[in-house]
């Protein structure tokens, strides 16, 4: 229940953050931080990460100076830093409150059949394709000698032909393992 309310609050906050004006931002920022603290304390860990500290420092010091300095530009940098903090905080809470099996089930309901299997197979195919791309490129370079636009075209064509052949083998394997049997009906 708490996770679902965190998800809902994260979605609402992510949509509302961009539309809060500078005048009400301080109050909004404080309330939002309090709610986030009650919902998910772990999400505040990103405040200690180096990229966040660097971005915060950029918004607070170099950016107002680049824009001409002065109180107005400093307040604008502060406003931007605040929005970035809230955006990253609620994004972290959103990602923490999403469970992968639930997300997969949602996509399956939306029509993406066997998405979990597809992602798993894709993860296994990734190094295979990276290796195939590398060997194809090296073989073509050995044959043609120098890098030209036509070499690039031949590379893409050869790589895609290899990939399509892999897909055909994969289709046969998927068929043998029962992909698509659900739609055959009771007389299968």
């Amino acid at each position, binding site marked *: 229940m708490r996770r679902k309310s965190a998800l809902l609050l994260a979605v609402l906050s992510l949509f509302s*953050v*961009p539309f*809060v004006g500078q005048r009400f931002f301080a109050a909004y920022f404080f309330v939002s931080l309090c709610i986030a603290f009650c919902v998910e304390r772990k999400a505040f860990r990103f405040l200690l990460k180096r*990229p966040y500290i660097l971005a915060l420092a950029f918004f607070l010091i170099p950016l107002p100076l680049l824009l001409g300095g002065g109180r107005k530009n400093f307040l*604008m940098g502060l*406003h*931007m830093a605040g*929005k*970035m903090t809230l*955006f990253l905080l609620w*994004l972290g809470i959103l*990602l923490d409150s999403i469970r992968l099996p639930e997300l997969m089930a949602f*996509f399956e309901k939306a*029509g*993406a059949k*066997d*998405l979990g299997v*597809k*992602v798993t*197979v*894709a*993860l296994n*195919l*990734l190094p295979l*394709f*990276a290796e195939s*791309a590398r060997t194809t490129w090296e073989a073509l370079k050995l044959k043609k000698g120098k890098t030209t636009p036509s070499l690039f075209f031949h590379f*893409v*064509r050869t790589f*895609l*032909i290899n*990939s*399509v*052949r*892999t*897909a*055909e083998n*994969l*289709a*046969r394997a*998927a*068929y043998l393992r029962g*992909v*698509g049997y659900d*739609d*055959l009906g009771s007389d299968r």
Partner: protein
Amino acid sequence: MRNEPRNFAYIVVFGTIWGLVEIGLGSLLHALNIPLKGSILTALTAGVALTGRIFAPQRGSLLQMGLIAAFLKIFSFGGSIALPLLGIMEEALILEGTLIVGGITLPAYIAAGGLAVLWTPVHFLFVNGILITGKFHLYYDLLLRMLSGITGLGRERAALLFLLLALFLFLVGALAGVLAWYLGRDVKRSALP
């Protein structure tokens, strides 16, 4: 063999290639920090996805390829992952939506590629200028300054600069669509005799 396993296999394979391009070339372009790197990457990935649609013609296949590419992108190096994921899903939605309206035809491929690449500056302005910082004019100025630097035209001619950018990006995307259309057919003839 029925079409279901074939659709399954082609969605997986082209989703993986899309993810591979996003991870490999995306990281390279990010490191080189060249202008319009997002548009270049979108043109390439749109080309891959549209080629894949020739082999997996069922409705929704581009969305599934996009989902697979987005899952693979999670494993890439780099700072922010959520924003490229949003970009990938936006691209998949545009490609799928255009092909649902136009069907699997050459004009639809041209429109899909063109619209997907045309969306990249909108994504840049929306994500950075509205969603994260809320300072749209800063990013608008940044884009305008870059365009002015590239073309040599003054910043006061903003309408012309944005029109030129839109035209250029649409042409790049359309070219990716045309290449995907012909390359897909050529590969189909060669690989599946």
